[in-house]
C-alpha cells in the first residue's frame, strides 16, 4: 500500500514536472506576459526551489490534505474537491454494485447452458458491449430519452426545480438513471465474459462432479461450490480495472455534465491547472488503493484457502 502510494506519487509528480514548466505553458497561452511577472509567479508557487524539495513540500502538504490552490481563481483545491468526490463516489458505487448483481446470474446461466441460444445471445451482445464507446452509449440515451421522449434530464446531478413530483430523492434518481445505465453496461460486458469463462472451467472440474454425485441440489452445487471459485478472478479483475473504471469516469461525467471529479478533471486538464490535476489524480489513486485493500480482505472470506498474514 504505502510503497505503491509513494511510487505513484513520485511518478505523478515527476510526470507532471517532466511535462514541462507550467510557467512556460502559461507563457504560450499569454504571449504578452512580462519576465518580471513570470519570476514573481515562480517564487509564489515555489518553483524556484530544487525539485526534491518541491516534491517533499508537495507530499507533506498532500498528507495534510492540502492540495494547494487552483491556478484559476486561486481557491484551495481540497475545498473544491470535497463536493465533487461525493458525486463521483455515489455514481461509481451504485454502478459497481448493480453491475455485479446483474452479471453474476447472467454469467452463470450462460455457462450452464453453453452454446445454447441464450448463451450465444449473451456472448455476442457482451462482445458488442465491449466494442461500444462508453460516451457514445450516453449520447444515444440522451438523444432518445431526453431530447426525443423528454423523460429524463440530459445533464447534471440535481435539478433546480426538482423533477418528478418535486421530490429531492426522486429527482436524484431521475438524474442517476442514465449515467448509471452507461457505467453498468460497460462493466457488465466485461464481468459476464469473465464469469462465464471461469464458470465453464470450474463446472468441468472433478469436485463439482463429486458434489453432484453426492446428490446435492443443482442450486447448491452452483451457488455454494462453483461460484465461490469463479468469483475470485472477477474480483481480482475488478481490483486491477478499478483504476481504469474510476479514470473512465471523465467520459461518462463529461457526457452527462455530472458535477464530479471526472468532469472537473477534464476542465482542469484542458486549462492545465496543475494543482487541481494532481489533486484529483492522487485522490483517485488513493481510492483505487483503498478499494484494492478491501478486495484483498474480501478475498479471505471468499476463498478460505487464503490466509492473511
Amino acid at each position: 500500500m504505502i510503497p505503491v502510494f509513494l511510487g505513484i506519487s513520485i511518478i505523478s509528480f515527476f510526470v507532471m514536472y517532466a511535462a514541462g514548466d507550467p510557467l512556460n505553458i502559461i507563457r504560450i497561452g499569454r504571449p504578452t506576459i512580462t519576465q518580471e511577472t513570470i519570476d514573481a509567479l515562480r517564487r509564489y508557487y515555489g518553483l524556484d526551489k530544487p525539485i526534491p524539495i518541491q516534491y517533499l513540500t508537495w507530499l507533506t502538504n498532500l498528507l495534510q490534505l492540502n492540495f494547494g490552490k487552483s491556478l484559476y481563481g486561486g481557491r484551495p483545491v481540497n475545498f473544491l474537491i470535497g463536493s465533487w468526490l461525493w458525486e463521483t463516489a455515489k455514481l461509481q458505487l451504485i454502478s459497481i454494485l448493480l453491475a455485479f448483481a446483474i452479471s453474476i446470474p447472467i454469467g452463470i446461466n450462460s455457462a450452464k447452458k453453453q452454446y445454447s441460444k441464450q448463451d450465444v445471445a449473451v456472448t455476442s451482445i457482451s462482445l458488442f458491449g465491449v466494442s461500444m464507446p462508453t460516451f457514445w452509449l450516453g449520447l444515444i440515451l440522451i438523444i432518445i430519452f431526453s431530447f426525443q421522449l423528454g423523460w429524463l434530464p440530459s445533464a447534471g446531478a440535481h435539478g433546480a426545480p426538482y423533477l418528478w413530483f418535486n421530490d429531492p430523492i426522486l429527482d436524484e434518481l431521475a438524474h442517476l438513471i442514465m449515467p448509471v445505465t452507461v457505467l453498468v453496461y460497460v462493466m457488465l460486458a466485461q464481468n459476464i465474459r469473465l464469469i462465464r469463462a471461469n464458470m465453464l472451467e470450474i463446472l468441468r472440474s472433478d469436485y463439482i462432479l463429486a458434489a453432484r454425485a453426492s446428490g446435492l441440489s443443482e442450486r447448491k452445487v452452483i451457488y455454494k461450490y462453483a461460484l465461490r471459485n469463479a468469483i475470485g478472478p472477477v474480483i481480482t479483475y475488478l481490483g486491477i480495472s478499478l483504476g481504469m473504471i474510476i479514470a473512465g469516469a471523465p467520459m461518462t461525467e463529461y457526457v452527462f455534465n455530472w458535477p464530479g471529479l471526472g468532469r472537473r478533471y477534464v476542465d482542469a486538464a484542458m486549462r492545465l491547472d496543475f494543482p487541481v490535476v494532481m489533486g484529483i489524480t492522487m485522490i483517485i489513486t488513493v481510492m483505487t488503493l483503498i478499494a484494492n485493500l478491501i478486495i484483498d480482505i474480501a478475498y479471505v472470506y471468499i476463498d478460505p484457502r487464503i490466509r492473511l498474514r
Partner: protein
Amino acid sequence: MASNKKEEKPKEKPKRRSAGQWAVAWRRFQRNKAGVFGLIIVMAVFFVGIFGSFFAPYPARPDTGAYAPFYEKPSQVRKPPSWLDPEQPNKWKYLFGTTPIGTDVFSDVIHGTKYTIYVGLVVTIITMALSIVVGAIAGFYGRWVDNLLMRTAEVFLVFPSLLFILVFVRIFTLTVGEPFWTIPIVNVQIPAGLTIVILILALFNWASNARMIRGEFLRVRELEFIEAERALGASNIRIIFRHILPNLLSSVIVVSTLTIAYAILLEAAVSFLGFGDVNTITWGQILQENFSEMRTVWWAEIFPGIAILLTVFGFNLLGDGLSDALNPRLRE
C-alpha cells in the same frame, strides 16, 4: 489483415504435402462465422480508408483551420439525413445529414477512416514492440530484472492512465507548432497532433500486453527444445529471436488485433473529450465538434458513433476468431 497475408503464404508452395500450421489455422478460421464476419468488416474498413477519398461525395476539409466554415451556405447547414427529409428531393444528397458548419457527415466519416486505421495500426505496432521487448527481457532473464519490470508494469496497470493521457496530450499538442509533419525521405505528411496522441496512447498501454508476453515466454522457455538448443551452444539472442519469438507469433497476432480495437476506442474517447487534434477530423473529432449542438443535429452524433462501433466490433470479432483458430488448445 496482416495475419491474412501470412496465412495465404503456404499456398504458394504446393510441394509440401501436409498442410502447414497457417493453412490449418486458416481452414479452422473459415469455419468460424463470427470471425469471417469480423474479417469482412475489417477489410471493408481498410478499403474505405485507402480508397475513400475517391468516392466520398464531398472533398475533405482543408488541411488547416478545420473550424473555419468551409461549406457554409444557409441551404447546407443542419440538414437532416436526406432519406428522412421530406423537403429534400434527392434522397442521396446527404446520407448522414450535415453539421452546423455545413459539412457533410457522410464525407467526414469516410475521410476520417484513414485516420482511424492510422491510429489503430501505429498504436498497436509501438505498443507491441514495447511489450515484446519488456516481456522478452522479463520472461527470459527472470530474477530481479523480471521483478523490476513487472512491478513497473503493475504500477502502470493500477495507474489511472486515461488521466495522464489527457494531460500529456494537452501539453504536447499545445507546444506543437505546425499542423503537419513531413517524414523526410518518403515525403509523406502525417498529422502532428494525432501522432502525438498515438505516441502517448502507446506509451501508457504496453503494461498488460507485456505481462501476457512474459507469461508466454516463461512457458516456452521451459520447453525441451530450448534446452536442446542451449546444449548445442546457441546464444541467448539466437534463442530469443529464432526459437522463442516465432512460437509466440500466434498470441502476438491475436493480442495485436484486440489492441487495434482498444486503441481506436481510446483515441475516439480522447478526441471526444476535446483533447484531440483539431486539424484532423477523426471520428471522435466529429462527435466532439457537434456535441454542443446535439439537440438539433443528433445525426452528427449517431452515425460517426456507429462507424466506431462497427470497426471496433469487427476487430474484436476478428481477434476472437483468430484466437480460436490459432490457439485450439483454449477451445478444447
